[in-house]
């Protein structure tokens, strides 16, 4: 026990030492270096969750990022971040370029970011990997599904952004408008899910464009916003007809440009209290195989609160609801008639969460989180629960405990 304690203390001291050394000079410019590393452990009572073997307890929950950036002139900044994760069957230690931007701010009301840019969508889309910013280890999965992070995370293109003051002291409006090409990871939940239908993507992505408006209201601490994203999806790979597997893998291509999501949100900060609420509707209509369309209509919302009870200790709770409706057309009708009864556990996930976080110093944190989930929400769209990890079927409810630690500098 004493040795374990000693190791923890040494780890914290080491992290603090690393944390202080975060910039160097190159070509007469200051280059900042920042990074994070986190490790989680998840245990569930019934269903396996997030592609991990959580019923037995799983520590396959690691992620890390490292970035460098430099302010080259008053208005021009460049930077890039590499991100890597292993979450059960997802990520699988394949590092990716998370973002790489050149950012020029002409005026306070107009700036341009170009390169691979994090997509602004709702309160947390661009920062959903950065759990060290919050008390929660996992954001509400109905709105920010970690297994589908790649489908909205970033785009190779450009953003226009800025802040505009509203007359009569009515606060400020921050806007972002973007367009770019999205490249989904081949180690994401979406690709993992469609494998069970015999589709093996080798390339996945498409054009996306959208906008975000957020109003910093005159009431101190209150923010109200709305986001919209339109997405096209093109996938190339191989397909195995599960009704005739002997035919082998044949070339496969799918394309759609009908996906969209709307998000409405609000955030209120008052001293040590933070309250968030968000609603998201996502619609997707994908021809998985020729002549076979599956329409997916996801609606999710959450209310969340957190309070820092001491300088280094924070507690929080949220309640989230996720519902999914499907429509099947063509060959996909073989999945059965559309079932829009949202009271069925396969069509919803209602999650009650409590969490606590302790910061051991400026750099090291530990979190403990409990999830009480009703439903598993698995239809034709992934949201944490996969048949591959639950071969004997799903149970209608799941309790989960998440323990997570990490450091950032």
């Amino acid at each position, binding site marked *: 026990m004493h040795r374990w304690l000693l190791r923890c203390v040494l780890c914290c001291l080491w992290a603090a030492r690393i944390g202080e050394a*975060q910039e160097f000079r190159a070509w007469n410019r200051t280059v*900042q270096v*920042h990074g*994070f590393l986190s490790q989680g452990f998840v245990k569930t009572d019934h269903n396996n969750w997030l592609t991990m073997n959580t019923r037995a307890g799983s520590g396959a929950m690691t992620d890390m*990022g490292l*970035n460098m*950036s*430099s*302010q080259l002139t*008053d*208005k021009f*900044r460049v*930077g*890039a*971040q590499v991100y890597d994760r292993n979450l059960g069957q997802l990520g699988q230690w394949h590092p990716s370029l998370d*973002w*790489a*931007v050149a*950012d020029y*701010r002409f*005026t*306070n009301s107009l700036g341009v*970011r170009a390169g691979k*840019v*994090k997509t602004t969508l709702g309160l947390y889309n*661009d*920062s959903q990997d*950065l759990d*060290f*910013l*919050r008390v929660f280890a996992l954001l509400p999965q109905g709105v920010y599904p970690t297994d589908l992070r790649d489908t909205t995370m970033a785009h190779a293109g450009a953003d226009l952004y800025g*802040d505009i003051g509203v*007359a*009569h*002291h*009515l*606060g*400020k409006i*921050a806007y972002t408008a973007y367009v770019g090409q999205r490249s989904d990871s081949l180690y994401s939940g979406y690709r993992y899910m469609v494998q069970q239908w015999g589709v093996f993507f080798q390339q996945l992505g498409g054009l996306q464009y959208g906008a975000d408006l957020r109003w*910093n*209201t*005159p*009431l*101190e*601490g209150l923010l109200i916003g709305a986001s919209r994203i339109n997405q096209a999806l093109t996938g190339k790979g191989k397909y195995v007809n599960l009704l005739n597997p002997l035919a082998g893998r044949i070339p496969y291509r799918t394309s759609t440009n009908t996906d969209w999501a709307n998000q409405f949100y609000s955030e209120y*900060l008052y001293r*040590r209290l933070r309250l968030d609420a968000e609603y998201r509707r996502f619609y997707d209509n994908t021809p998985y195989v020729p002549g076979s369309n599956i329409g997916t209509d996801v609606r999710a919302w959450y209310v969340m609160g957190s309070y*820092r009870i*001491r*300088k*280094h200790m924070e507690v929080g709770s949220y309640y989230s609801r996720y519902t999914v409706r499907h429509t099947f057309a063509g060959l996909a009708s073989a999945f059965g008639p559309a079932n829009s009864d949202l009271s069925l556990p396969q069509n919803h996930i209602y999650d009650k969460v409590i969490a606590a976080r302790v*910061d051991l110093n*400026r750099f090291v944190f530990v979190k403990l989180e409990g999830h009480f989930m009703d439903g598993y929400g698995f239809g034709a769209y992934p949201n944490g629960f996969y048949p591959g990890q639950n071969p004997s079927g799903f149970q209608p409810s799941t309790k989960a405990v998440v323990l997570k630690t990490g450091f*950032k500098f």
Partner: protein
Amino acid sequence: MTRIQRLMLLAAWILITNLQSFPREIKIVASPDLRAETIAAGELKSLFLLQRRTLRDGTSIEPVLQKPGAVHEAFLKEYLGRDGEEIRAYYQGLVFTGKASMPREMSSDAEMVAYVARTRGAIGYVSGGANTDSVKVLTVAPESFRSERILLKRVEPEYPKELQQRRIAGTVRLALTVSPRGSVEDVRVMGGNPILAEAAEKAAKEWVYFPSATSSTIEVSIAFAVRP
């Protein structure tokens, strides 16, 4: 150690960690080449939240922080309305999503003054007792001295009967201090008949303005006219 001793130790620890000695005064210091002598509270906040990069006159600004400590906490509390943990998470959110770089951090008042003195466009903060001879000390002004806030509730003053009968009319000028939430916190009489001013002051205290990010000082004139 007995249970009582443990409890006392815990209580002492909580007391000590909750007591922070904030410096009484914070000075906002700026590079000597800055033309501005004053800065609006809202503008200062936007600059340190990295929402703006320039002053209203177009000058590019580099906000500079102090490392965690009493001066840093006092500045954050007074001008940004957040504490050290919140602001650090806020900056990290921008840094790790590629939207900004972390502001530079200084270890002491002396280091802050030296850096600001030699860096074009730098703005920082030091404790009230720090030597600021080599830098410009900015005055932080309330957000506005003009009546730009929307009046939501106006209560008309009562015209004293005695003055009405004697046909004494006039205009009273008041300076109202309006809180961010919109209530009138203070009324200062700037001119007018003292009896009319008393009535105007009483009514103005009931007025309610639309909320704003910061408190404002608003000049208003209230006319008392005798009906024919």
